């Protein structure tokens, strides 16, 4: 599939999970396709990075479920910050481990999973929907019941995949991409390269096969599709470009220019514009 074909399967109002973590292995080509679409009113579930920033800047988020939103080497995501400060969307702010429990519950078709995290913190104060549960065993502990994060669709980016949706990560961290796919009714994998199944699995340790085809609805080959986030070992984060993004995001005129230069065309246009931009920096 192409990124635009994948986005063609999505609808306004959906709950959308986005894989990766911060500014790492984000399905940015799919996010860019979303920006070009008319889809809006989304509930976005993400360990947030520039995916959240871009969708927030485009006004496509109605509700955000997250534990943080960051560019890693630039701690504060400027679009996320600005959107929160103008009250642009509803926020469900969870702790990182609560988020993981919620996704796990979603994948396992459970209504909730218990966790100690959240007790005593303002996460419970600002999310009055969150309930606690008392252990039925002799300890009688009171724990937080994290409701399942069930997704209409998940978008993830992996290093390699076959055309059926079996996919491998080559970097050190799987993040939670398998859980995102398993917690979703439909899941779409973009990858650096689509290869034959024999090539995908021939050289690989089996535990790097993070995602199985039964949990995948569609695959797109999007070289540099995580840019400007990292996709190691294929490429590191494009720090210079990320800095330019963050700088532009802080100023409405500069942002308009950035959008026109990079985000209005196709994915190929984007990649070509990035190359040209890098040549100009020399």
């Amino acid at each position, binding site marked *: 599939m192409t990124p635009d074909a994948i986005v063609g399967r999505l609808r306004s109002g959906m709950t959308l999970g986005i894989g990766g973590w911060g500014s790492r292995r984000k399905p940015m080509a799919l996010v860019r396709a979303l920006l070009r679409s008319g889809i809006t009113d989304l509930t976005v579930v993400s360990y947030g990075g520039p995916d959240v920033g871009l969708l927030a800047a485009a006004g496509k988020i109605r509700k955000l479920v997250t534990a943080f939103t960051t560019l890693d080497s630039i701690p*504060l995501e400027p679009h996320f910050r600005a959107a929160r400060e103008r009250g642009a969307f509803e926020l469900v702010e969870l702790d*990182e481990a609560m988020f993981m429990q919620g996704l796990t519950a979603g994948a396992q078709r459970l209504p909730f999973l218990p966790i*100690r995290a959240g*007790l*005593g*913190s*303002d*996460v419970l104060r600002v999310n009055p929907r969150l309930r606690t549960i008392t252990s039925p065993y002799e300890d009688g502990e009171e724990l937080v019941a994290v409701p399942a994060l069930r997704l209409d669709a998940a978008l993830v980016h992996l290093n390699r995949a076959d055309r059926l949706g079996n996919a491998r990560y080559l970097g050190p*961290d799987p993040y939670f991409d398998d859980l995102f796919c398993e917690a979703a009714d439909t899941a779409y994998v973009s990858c650096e390269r689509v290869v034959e199944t024999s090539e995908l699995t021939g050289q690989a340790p089996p535990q790097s096969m993070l995602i199985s085809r039964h949990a995948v609805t569609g695959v797109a080959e999007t070289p540099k599709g995580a840019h400007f986030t990292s996709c190691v070992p294929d490429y590191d984060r494009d720090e210079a470009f990320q800095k330019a993004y963050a700088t532009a995001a802080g100023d409405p005129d500069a942002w308009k220019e950035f959008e026109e230069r990079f985000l209005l065309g196709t994915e190929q246009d984007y990649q070509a514009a990035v190359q040209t931009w890098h040549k100009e920096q020399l």
Partner: protein
Amino acid sequence: MTQTDPTAASTASDAPSDATSDATAVTRAEYCVIACAEAWRDAGEILASPMGTVPSIAARLAKLTFSPDLLLTDGEALLIGDVPPVGAPSAVTEGWLPYRRHLTMVMGGRRHVMMGASQIDRFGNQNISCIGDWERPARQLLGVRGAPVNTINNPVSYWIPRHSKRVFVEKVDMISGVGYDSAAAAGPSATRFHDLRRVVSDLGVFDFGAPDHAMRLVSLHPGVRAEQVRAATGFPLVAADDVPCTREPTPRELRLIREVVDPKGLREREVRS
């Protein structure tokens, strides 16, 4: 298992030998490194999770000296088997710790994290989420991240590179890391593994040893006066009449900081002398 366990395979010790340091005066940043390293003294076989430059130097120093059994990460998904300088790549991997396993390790308690804080109050409630009303913040920060899970499960300390009333506040705007009063109010499941150890700032060292687990000044970095700390703190601070100075680094520690762990002097950028 640790290197000193009788069942561990033996290896030659590569611990650096003692040497006399040069005569240069100890900087404020170096006192901060010592004070942070002390947080991990005798911690045993647990993960030291430092956030910030000075804590990263400190954790390495602790491992090279009085806490050899500490586990360290490369800042990403690997446990490192060597102690490279801060900012330099590791050459030896001893384990795999992606986020999902890291979070499980947090909940298992075999970890002592030193976090930063945009705000911290007298009971150790910490905020990294936002400033102002959460519904419509004046300034959005990172979000709560893993502060709730950290503080309720494993030992936690804090590093504040610039001590001021903006950080040391009467009441934090969004409790991300759980303080002693909040844990007590939430009940026994919240207090069971809750353990805030110390706060190190560029001015001094604090613990929660005052009545009701309130923050207490335990040492001043040389050159700092108690009144100076009080003036930069937004709540009444408990302190003894005669507060000691933060201890001096040993010559070996000073050599390790300057020549082995932080030869580029990154610590001096985080804490100006």
